[in-house]
């Protein structure tokens, strides 16, 4: 698409074509290209070849999971009931999708309209992340058709997961609502956009409340198993707070990562407003992330001190903990700070990649790697890994599809 652009192709930015006629929905879906051109572009893209290879292997296995059951795709472990579907799909993807409420708060609540160019990307990142977290959950649940049970059939309010279930469901609706304006612009439903505009402040506030609670609740889940998670990753008093604060910089860092990827691979779709402001906004996000990082670091240290777990630092697990803290927290903190001070957006981007890696490592450590640290190490089944890659690839495909069409990276020209 980038090369097409250099040949003079102009992406769809308004309802009207150059000659004044309106784009049809089908044409909008085809990015304003003829079907022949569109498929030629798709076939030429090497990334698509990788995706097709993933689906060729992954789709049968994903289908097989529902035919043969979880026993076919996991090790059927009683000691390790949770695997990669939840470890990656839920525990990692949810904090990385925290950009939704972060951007909503920044722009709508704190009135930082200078972040508007990147606001919709943050909201989309949030929505798709949560949507696919729910997809991963459906793959993991023993009886996924009973997903609505905790809401409508049999309620167990004492459980932390009850809060998570309700919040994710409600928050997902919130995020869909927050993105209706983008969809409405693209489709030409001005009334929908007006309706959401009226309640956007309420949606944002609801988003903050819901997010704060369930990001923390995901951490609180591990207080069910105090002896099973390694003491350095476990803190009975602060687990929820650590997960919440890390979600803040996780969302912001993921947003920087995604915006960087759009700048590299989807430049044809970005408009000047987005591209010209991107570096400045990246540094703004970096500033916020660094504040969250230092808070997180302090709370982590307090957590270790509170439980008096210092002797664990000298063990093998302690070394692994230090690695996670240095690469995932301390280095991003330093690099973000340096980047903001020296107005170096590239350094901020590099730091964002490190921070995202750090979050993934922290969540996987807590949920999988240091879980049952006193028993034995469980390596997930290869089919589990294949399914995770397949569903994540679908997430990327949907992400790309929405970004290529709806006014997220560009501003819609209302010329009606």
């Amino acid at each position, binding site marked *: 698409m980038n090369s097409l652009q250099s040949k003079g192709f102009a992406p769809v930015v308004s309802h009207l074509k150059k000659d004044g006629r309106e784009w049809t929905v089908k044409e909008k879906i085809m990015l304003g290209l003829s079907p022949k051109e569109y498929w030629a572009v798709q076939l030429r893209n090497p990334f698509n070849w990788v995706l097709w290879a993933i689906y060729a292997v992954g789709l049968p296995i994903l289908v097989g999971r*529902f*035919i*043969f*059951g*979880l*026993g076919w795709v*996991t090790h*059927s472990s*009683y*000691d390790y*009931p*949770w695997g990669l579907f939840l470890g990656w799909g839920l525990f990692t993807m949810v904090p990385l999708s925290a950009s939704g409420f972060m951007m909503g708060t920044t722009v709508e609540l704190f009135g930082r309209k200078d972040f508007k160019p990147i606001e919709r990307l943050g909201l989309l990142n949030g929505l798709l992340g949560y949507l696919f977290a729910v997809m991963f959950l459906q793959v993991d*649940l*023993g*009886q*996924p058709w*009973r*997903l609505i*049970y*905790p809401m409508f*059939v*049999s*309620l*167990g309010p*004492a*459980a*932390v*997961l*009850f809060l*998570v*279930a309700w919040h994710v469901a409600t928050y997902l609706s919130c995020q869909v609502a927050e993105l209706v304006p983008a969809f409405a612009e693209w489709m030409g439903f001005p009334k929908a956009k007006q309706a959401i505009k009226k309640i956007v402040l309420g949606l944002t506030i609801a988003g903050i409340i819901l997010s704060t609670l369930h990001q923390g609740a995901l951490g609180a*889940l591990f207080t*069910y*198993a*105090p*002896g*099973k998670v390694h003491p350095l990753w476990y803190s009975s008093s602060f687990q929820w707070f650590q997960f919440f604060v890390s979600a803040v910089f996780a969302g912001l860092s993921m947003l920087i990562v995604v915006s960087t990827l759009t700048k590299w691979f989807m430049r044809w779709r970005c408009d000047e407003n987005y591209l010209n402001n991107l570096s400045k906004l990246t540094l703004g996000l970096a500033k916020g992330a660094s504040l969250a990082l230092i808070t997180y670091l302090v709370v982590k240290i307090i957590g270790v001190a509170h439980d008096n777990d210092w002797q664990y630092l000298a063990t093998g697990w302690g070394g692994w903990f230090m690695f996670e803290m240095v690469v995932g927290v301390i280095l991003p903190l330093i690099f973000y700070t340096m980047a903001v001070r020296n107005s170096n957006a590239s350094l901020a981007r590099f730091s964002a990649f490190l921070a995202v890696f750090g979050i993934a490592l922290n969540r996987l450590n807590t949920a999988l790697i240091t879980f049952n640290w*006193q*028993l*034995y190490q*469980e390596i997930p089944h290869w089919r589990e890994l294949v399914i995770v890659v397949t569903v994540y690839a679908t997430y990327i495909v949907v992400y790309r599809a929405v970004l290529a069409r709806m006014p997220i990276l560009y501003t819609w020209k209302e010329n009606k």
Partner: protein
Amino acid sequence: MKMINRRSFLKGGLAGGAAIAAVGTSKQAEAAGSFGGYPDSMGVLVDLTKCVGCRTCEAACNKEQGLPAPDKPFDDPSVFEEKREGGLPRRTTEKAYTVVQKYDVPGREHPLFRKVQCNHCNEPACLTSCFVNAYKKTPEGAVMYDPTVCVGCRTCMVACPFYIPAYSYSSAINPVVKKCIMCYDTRLKFGKPPACVEACPQEVMTFGKRKDLLKLVTSGSARSPMPTWITCTAKPRWAARPGCIFPTCPLTRSATTPIWATSRSSVTSRSSWRWCPWCSPSGLRSLPAFIC
């Protein structure tokens, strides 16, 4: 929208807050977190000093609950040598609600056999963690599970400190949690003892009202000495209940070899000792129904 005057807002807010406070906190809220069990619930007291590892309890459970045939006969002692991953002994599975483990304890003449099954805790972690309320602590004492509402999230398996719930991964359309139900449907409801209790030739297990059994634990008559107490290996300040030998004890580091302790007095006399939180007694309120 009529603009509200700041004074009126504050007045209204204070009045509203006072009204809520006046209604009072519910008694239930105060009592949260300390359920001592239903007054007449039954319990099973397990004296592991008597267990000889004959596995008749496993056979009885298998027949009573209609479980599938085992991989090896119930009189085959080679199952004790089976080690699963990490060198750990056998555990409860979707086909076996109770298993007997064998430990060679240094300083003890005969091997130590330990029966593992759901402890039917007074405040079960599985029950608290279940977001569809699938677990229920019955007044008779058994912790029951409702497979018709279970979504299969497996949080109960994460929450149980004793690693008891198993999951029927083998089923594609109706996988559910499998665990000991104290033979509630067929026996406990009618006041009868669980199948394993009835089958045991050595009468390792005593069935009766939990409050009566606790009296036996604390008093311990000379005629039936209670099993000795165990001390944890890594944290000697923690003392565990008798028979509390788990390879998965959260507080022990190298916990596959239990320590067959010293005398009871050496444990209870030291004021600096604290109870292992899994079975933390403070009045023995939170002891599970199966008291090993």
